[in-house]
């Protein structure tokens, strides 16, 4: 990791929905400042309604951004219009959750992988074929299968093909949106390893979006926890899992099952009641206060700012320093 900032978001907001009078717009992303360093894997975790998928798309500007800026390698994406933005897309790509829907059933997988190269006019003819074969090899598939259609492949293989497509044009940055969630557990590890290998071989930066804390632990350098459109905690992986400081992060970690029956038997009852409020109805003040076991008066009225709780460890919580919030250290 070079420590250099590749992507920088400031005051990022994405709202959907009713315009004009009447209904309220749904704020999927409600004001986020985030830096992603070149060469790192930043994971974004959250549950439904957290806005993590929208954040990924907002950084790539594939959904309209309602406020704030995204700078990619210093370039303000909002200043790029139409064809210029499309040309810029060579530098960042996305791998999606559903390996079955992400590939056009009528195109051969070779054609699918070739698409970014053709769109950006990077190769043609023999050079194109060579690059396709190279990409297939990189993801562990036999180049001879390039002429077959997606239905001939299993889910895990299709995801590999999607990854091959994502790296074909040599991008700098890849957003993986729940990229392993639809796969069996035994395949998840393989695909995560593939992501890591490609990163080492080719030099990539990842934004890894997931709801699965176990998966994130395996691959992330830093983790951002999102709740209802805001980042509530941001820290290096070991620090976040070892000493989570935000009550929501603590609840998430407590809720995730570990394959250790003895440990599980000792767990207290889940502290959180109820479901997250709908993003259309976000609470005033700290968005988490309605479910927070420690909510105080200030939490009900004022949104907490992001403060530094430890080196490189940021929390958005009024009570972050309070002793009752300090969790017992977990084994690493």
């Amino acid at each position, binding site marked *: 990791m070079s420590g250099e900032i590749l992507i920088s978001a400031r005051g990022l907001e994405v709202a959907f929905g009713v315009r004009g009078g009447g209904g309220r717009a749904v704020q999927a992303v409600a004001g986020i400042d985030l830096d992603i360093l070149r060469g790192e894997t930043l994971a974004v975790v959250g549950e439904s309604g957290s806005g993590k998928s929208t954040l990924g798309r907002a950084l790539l500007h594939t959904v309209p951004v309602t406020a704030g800026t995204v700078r990619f390698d210093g370039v303000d994406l909002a200043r790029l219009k139409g064809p210029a933005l499309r040309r810029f897309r060579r530098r960042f790509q996305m791998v999606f959750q559903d390996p079955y829907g992400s590939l056009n*059933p009528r195109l051969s997988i070779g054609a699918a992988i070739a698409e970014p190269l053709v*769109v950006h006019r990077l190769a043609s003819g023999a050079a194109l074929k060579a690059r396709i074969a190279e990409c297939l090899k990189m993801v562990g598939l036999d180049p001879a299968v390039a002429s077959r259609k997606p239905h001939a492949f299993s889910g895990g293989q299709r995801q590999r093909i999607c990854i091959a497509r994502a790296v074909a044009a040599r991008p700098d940055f890849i957003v993986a949106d729940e990229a392993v969630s639809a796969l069996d557990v035994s395949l998840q590890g393989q695909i995560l390893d593939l992501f890591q290998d490609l990163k080492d071989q080719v030099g990539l930066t990842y934004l890894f979006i997931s709801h699965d804390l176990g998966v994130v632990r395996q691959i992330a350098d830093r983790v951002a926890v999102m709740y209802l459109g805001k980042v509530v905690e941001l820290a290096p992986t070991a620090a976040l899992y070892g000493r989570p400081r935000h009550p929501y992060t603590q609840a998430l970690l407590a809720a995730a099952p570990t394959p250790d029956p003895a440990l599980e038997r000792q767990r207290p009852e889940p502290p959180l009641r109820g479901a997250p409020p709908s993003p259309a109805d976000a609470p005033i003040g700290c968005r988490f206060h309605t479910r927070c076991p420690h909510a105080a008066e200030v939490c009900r009225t004022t949104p907490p700012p992001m403060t530094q709780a430890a080196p490189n460890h940021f929390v958005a919580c009024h009570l972050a320093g309070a002793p009752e919030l300090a969790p017992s250290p977990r084994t690493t």
Partner: protein
Amino acid sequence: MIRAFGLLRRSPPAMVGTIILAVVLFVTLAAPLVSPADPRQVNPEARLLPPMSSALPAASAPAGRPTLHILGTDAIGRDVLSRVIYGGRISLAVGVLAALLSGAFGMLVGCISGYWGGWIDAAASWLVDVQLSFPFLLLAIFLLGALGGGVAAVIVILALGTWVNTARIVRGQVLSIKSQGYVEAALTTGASPGRVLLRHILPNTLSPVVVLASFAMAQAILTEAGLSFLGVGLDPSTPSWGTMMNDGRDYLVTAWWIGAVPGLAIAVTVLGATLLGEGLRDLLDPRRGR
């Protein structure tokens, strides 16, 4: 080609329909070879002869053996069978061209509507609703009167009758395809909307369009016949099945074959096209897991 044939075999209606249409097409295209006589040959001596009559050639014709008029002659002695064979060229051409035009236009509007949505979609839907609220036949008669006759005008009018269906269905297809992951993937890659439309969306809408085109052809042939029968379609001197039926109108009781034979030809062709359309629809039904 062979694979397509194998596919056809799975659906009896499609098979039968294709055979019928193939025969009709062959006969009309090979008219000079197949037709027993010159369809324009007038023979005042042999007027209104019933089927299977033979007659001496006309005074104006080159001398020869007596001709057997398998399906009789019309009011001015022309061989009905020959007229039907040659007339088929016009009717089929009109039908096919109308179907193609309807399919192309419907697909264009459906794609643009479905893909861009917004006011374009609203405008197109409004247009469709307006057209649908007019009784088609009246609209056709009015337009034909305004534009004058002529084959081109008739083809356009016929296409007008069926493009709406295609547009609606294609629009629905585009909407559902738009939400597919691979469309978002292509856009994220940096493909232009035009490329996405042409390369990813359009090919996946072709199946229903082919089905609809078959039905459109059937409908075009019928409508042309109807319009010509009413005297507002093709010019009566153009030998199409419809105009022939118009000719036979005055002789329904006395020389029924003049109108009935082209009518039968229409029925058989329309049956063929409809069967093909139904068969294709079943074959291309995604639930069959193609």
